């Protein structure tokens, strides 16, 4: 027994015992404990195994910088690997497991790596495992992968939910310690909209483990009073359990709130975690400072901890890290911790001070060894003693806990995430925050102000200054009264010479001083190279404790100042953030919004199978009783449309109203074919190019009045076309008098196609829709019997006599019902996009399966639509380039299998018969293919080099990917009714 719970004190609620397990062992802690403090209270010193050498490791810190005490919390689909025990809030029923050990934490086979360490130095893997080549994936890599990694992710579906929220404020205070609380209080009283975020579950920061008094009372009580006042202010939002992880452009911060991570039975109404995006006019970083570890032989033995952490466990959690504590310090802070521990009744035996002289007060009964250094530690899985060297003499001192205090490093992470580098300060012997302007300022210990009084003052002053800048009046309130305290002083001690065993710099990644030496020797002395070569600072703690020492050591070895070495780059995330939190609610079927057609319910009623089309659901086919495959349904639908009539929902097409005296001119410039002289009451097929001459989209243009057009786009490109039109109207031709807006959602649109279409539709409209009165490509606003506004178009995407009828979306279903009823006698059926696709394929009409962004109008057989006479339109000029007009371009053709029983599949490539497959011999590819129930065999559309000259030629349709090859005859792409007799019937 070494670590234990003190008989009294701390901010834990001793009346609320919480039971939990560690590696299956039932243990007890109190409300207010972290997992780490509870483990210590139960004398569980050994918590994990290191990454490379699988060395036994214990708790080092009392916060987010923890490199060692990583556990897996929870089980099954609710496991959280790599959780830092030092920040995990204890709750009843918590289960924790150690990681990276086999078979058990106490006996880990992987520890053999430690014996092999001379061979496993930094970068050893770059120099070996190359012979024979095949063994890398088969042997070396699997072994390396299994040994590496830390916790285990089961990748099971996460049962919990997440969300996001925006927040806006005048002042964001990051960190709820003395400086942060004072800043929030000052700004809050002045009336600013303030957000105070702190990663801890209890606000107060260092006040919670502070022994000094504030306003004559205990520091935690002061914190509590301030928090209470802040809570009472309507303009202040307190976010505890919230880590600000990133600082982004425009002073926007990312923060993650652990809403229910500390709850055994989470409420379904609340998210587990919530990501905040906080847009702040000003921000104050009150993130404190990190105590530095010391790099000495055996410094990773469980029981060796940060001195301040020992203090925190004693004061905040009422836990002593040991029966006999030693402190190794390079400055005054070690003494301060020793005094506070003594005051708490924790036995401090020895202070080893690296400095020859010091004037710090020594608590009664504590031995001080000046100019001392620790060269080794004793004990197996827990510390039993330290080997102290002084003036060439070594002494073994028994102790079961050792506190390291190597001075302080301000936590300036966030301030350095947008490109500015931290600045070396000789005065602070640390890297300080750079000046990043007014929007983000650093305050308190993060600003190198280490006394309690200084922090309180700094927070109040900076917040008052910000209030004034933003036009608020911050009345000067008296500062809280504190005890007199000197700024801590320390010597920069990057590593302790004379190590008798490995002296670790980066605990988690097992980087020790020799690794850095090797890196330097091999030319990796640049701080970024050293990091990448040794992996120092790349562990889950991102080097919060180790980076500064690595820089110092490199500086020492290179004989330059730390300023010259510099730091590696600070990047989000300050501490790791879950995928789930960042994804929020956008997951699974809610990954993107869903768009539903006004005829969705109508489709459902008719048994539609739906298919995704971008954000839309579309009716794909309508299976009927007895139909076993989709093909049966589709064939029936196609044949029925060709023989009788069908109704298809085409509401998902993009629909745009275009108005204005220059509307015709605008559209004339937008499409490659002529629009200017389109008569009122007429529709026209339109083809749009990109400026580089390739087809962008196709659709129809209908002129409803001289200055009023109705334009449709494909479903897929509706948004892109609308944006393109915005660009053309606003930027390219701002002087054209044209206005337009999307009406895609206003109209339900139906295609009624087939020889009986007219008979069916005529029952709904009074207007004469005979061939003479309403011929092919007519377009008209009309009304249904019963008075509903409608638009009627004589256009066809099937080659049949067809109409498209648009009605206000809400009426879509009722009108479709009516058409189906009217069509019953005419054998109407509902048909979906699959049948639509076959119908258009039979007719040689093209979709974005053909228009893949690399196709010219001529490639597509639409060269006649390219109006060279027009002075200007998008894509005209660059269409003339050699590569777009070359004779060997691939052109659209039809394909028919020579053996009519064979199928052709989209995606196959084309080869001349008998030619060897090769990129050079590749003749083209199949863009669309399907079974034509009308013809009784498969057909396809394909792009073939110089295809139009090759009708009648036989080509190999080569689908090596699916081991499928057929011979097909090249033909005209129009398979059905090439004379358009049905269309114009």
């Amino acid at each position: 027994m070494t670590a234990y719970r003190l008989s009294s004190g701390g901010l834990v609620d001793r009346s609320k015992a919480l039971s939990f397990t560690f590696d299956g062992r039932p243990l007890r802690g109190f409300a207010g404990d972290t997992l780490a403090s509870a483990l210590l209270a139960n004398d569980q010193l050994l918590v994990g195994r290191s990454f490379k050498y699988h060395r036994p490791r214990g708790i080092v810190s009392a916060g987010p910088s923890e490199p060692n005490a990583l556990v897996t919390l929870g089980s099954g689909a609710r496991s959280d690997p790599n959780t830092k025990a030092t920040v995990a809030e204890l709750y009843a029923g918590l289960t924790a497991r150690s990681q990276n050990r086999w078979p058990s934490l106490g006996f880990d086979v992987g520890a053999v790596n430690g014996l092999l360490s001379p061979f496993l130095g930094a970068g050893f893997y770059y120099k070996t495992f190359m012979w024979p080549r095949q063994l890398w994936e088969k042997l070396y890599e699997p072994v390396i992968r299994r040994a590496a990694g830390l916790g285990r992710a089961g990748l099971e579906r996460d049962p919990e939910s997440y969300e996001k929220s925006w927040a806006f404020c005048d002042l964001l205070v990051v960190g709820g310690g003395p400086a942060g609380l004072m800043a929030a209080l000052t700004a809050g009283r002045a009336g600013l909209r303030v957000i105070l975020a702190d990663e801890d579950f209890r606000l107060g920061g260092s006040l919670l483990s502070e022994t000094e008094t504030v306003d004559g009372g205990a520091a935690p009580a002061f914190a509590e009073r301030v928090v209470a006042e802040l809570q009472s202010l309507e303009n202040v939002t307190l976010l505890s359990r919230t880590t600000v992880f990133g600082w982004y452009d425009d002073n926007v911060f990312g923060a993650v709130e652990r809403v229910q991570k500390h709850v055994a039975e989470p409420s379904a109404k609340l998210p587990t975690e919530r990501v905040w995006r906080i847009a702040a006019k000003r921000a104050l970083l009150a993130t404190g400072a990190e105590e530095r570890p010391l790099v000495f032989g055996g410094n990773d033995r469980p029981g060796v901890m940060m001195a301040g952490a020992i203090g925190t466990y004693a004061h905040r959690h009422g836990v002593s890290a040991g029966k006999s504590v030693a402190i190794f310090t390079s400055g005054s802070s070690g003494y301060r911790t020793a005094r506070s521990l003594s005051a708490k009744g924790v036995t401090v035996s020895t202070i080893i001070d690296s400095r020859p002289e010091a004037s710090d007060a020594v608590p009664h009964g504590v031995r001080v060894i000046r100019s001392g250094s620790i060269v080794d530690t004793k004990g197996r899985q827990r510390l039993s003693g330290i080997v102290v060297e002084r003036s060439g003499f070594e002494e073994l001192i028994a102790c079961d806990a050792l506190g390291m205090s190597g001075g302080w490093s301000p936590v300036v992470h966030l301030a350095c995430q947008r490109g500015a580098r931290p600045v070396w300060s000789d005065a602070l012997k640390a890297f300080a925050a750079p000046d990043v302007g007014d929007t983000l300022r650093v305050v308190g210990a993060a600003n190198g102000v280490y006394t309690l009084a200084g922090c309180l003052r700094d927070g109040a002053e900076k917040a008052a200054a910000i209030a004034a800048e933003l036009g608020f009046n911050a009345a000067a309130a008296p500062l809280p009264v504190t005890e007199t305290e000197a700024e801590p002083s320390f010597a920069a001690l990057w590593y302790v010479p004379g190590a008798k065993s490995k002296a670790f710099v980066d605990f988690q990644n097992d980087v020790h001083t020799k690794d850095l030496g090797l890196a330097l020797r091999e030319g990796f002395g640049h701080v970024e190279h050293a990091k990448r070569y040794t992996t120092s600072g790349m562990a889950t703690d991102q080097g919060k404790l180790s980076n500064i020492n690595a820089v110092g050591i490199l500086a020492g070895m290179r004989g330059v100042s730390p300023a010259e070495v510099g730091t590696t780059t600070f990047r989000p995330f300050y501490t790791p953030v879950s995928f789930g939190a960042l994804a929020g609610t956008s997951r699974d079927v809610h990954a993107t919004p869903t768009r539903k057609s006004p005829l969705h319910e109508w489709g459902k009623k008719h048994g539609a199978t739906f298919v995704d089309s971008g954000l839309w659901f579309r009716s794909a086919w309508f299976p009927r009783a007895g139909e076993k495959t989709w093909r049966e349904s589709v064939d029936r639908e196609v044949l029925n449309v060709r023989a009788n009539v069908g109704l298809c929902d085409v509401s998902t097409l993009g629909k745009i109203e275009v108005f204005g005296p220059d509307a015709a001119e605008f559209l004339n410039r937008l499409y490659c074919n002529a629009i200017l002289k389109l008569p009122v009451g007429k529709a026209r097929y339109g083809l749009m190019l990109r400026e580089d001459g390739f087809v962008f989209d196709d659709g129809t243009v209908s002129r409803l009045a001289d200055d009023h057009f109705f334009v449709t786009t494909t479903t897929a490109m509706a948004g892109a076309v609308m944006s393109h039109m915005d660009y053309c109207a606003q930027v390219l031709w701002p002087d054209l008098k044209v206005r337009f807006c999307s009406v895609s959602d206003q109209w339900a649109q139906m295609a009624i196609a087939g020889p009986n279409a007219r008979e069916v539709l005529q029952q709904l409209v009074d207007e004469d829709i005979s061939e003479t009165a309403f011929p092919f490509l007519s377009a008209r606003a009309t009304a249904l019997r019963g008075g509903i506004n409608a638009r009627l178009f004589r256009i066809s995407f099937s080659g049949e006599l067809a109409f498209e009828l648009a009605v206000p979306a809400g009426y879509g279903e009722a009108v479709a019902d009516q058409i189906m009823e009217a069509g019953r006698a005419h054998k109407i059926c509902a048909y979906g996009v699959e049948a639509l696709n076959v119908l258009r394929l039979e007719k040689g009409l093209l979709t974005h399966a053909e228009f893949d962004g690399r196709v010219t109008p001529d490639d597509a057989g639409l060269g006649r639509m390219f109006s060279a006479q027009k002075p200007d339109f998008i894509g005209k000029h660059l269409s003339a380039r050699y590569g777009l007009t070359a004779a060997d371009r691939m052109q659209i053709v039809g394909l028919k299998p020579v053996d009519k029983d064979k199928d052709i599949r989209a995606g196959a490539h084309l080869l001349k018969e008998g030619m060897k497959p090769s990129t050079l011999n590749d003749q083209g590819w199949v863009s669309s293919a399907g079974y034509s129930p009308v013809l009784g065999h498969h057909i396809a559309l394909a792009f073939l080099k110089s295809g139009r000259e090759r009708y009648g030629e036989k080509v190999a349709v080569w689908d090596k990917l699916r081991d499928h090859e057929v011979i097909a005859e090249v033909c005209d792409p129009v398979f059905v009714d090439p004379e358009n007799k049905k269309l114009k019937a």
Partner: protein
Amino acid sequence: MASLITCPHCGVRPKEEFAIRGDASLIRPAPSASDEAWHDYVYVRANPRGRTVEHWHHIAGCRRFLVVERDTVTHEVYSVVDGTAAAREARR
């Protein structure tokens, strides 16, 4: 800039409301312009390191093309103006 854009019509808006089109300094050549002029317009970009102008389409807002003048290194925004006004200005 990469977090918030102040739209002259809609106010301060998050980045995800915009679609970025690209270089706003380009002027579409006359139909009769040379092949080289057209090539440069469609394919060549100054791609400055530092101050640049870029079209941001406020696609989830006013649907206006905005000209955002900004720095490509610091991401500082100098001005945001409506694209039509800027286009007219440029043509003058």
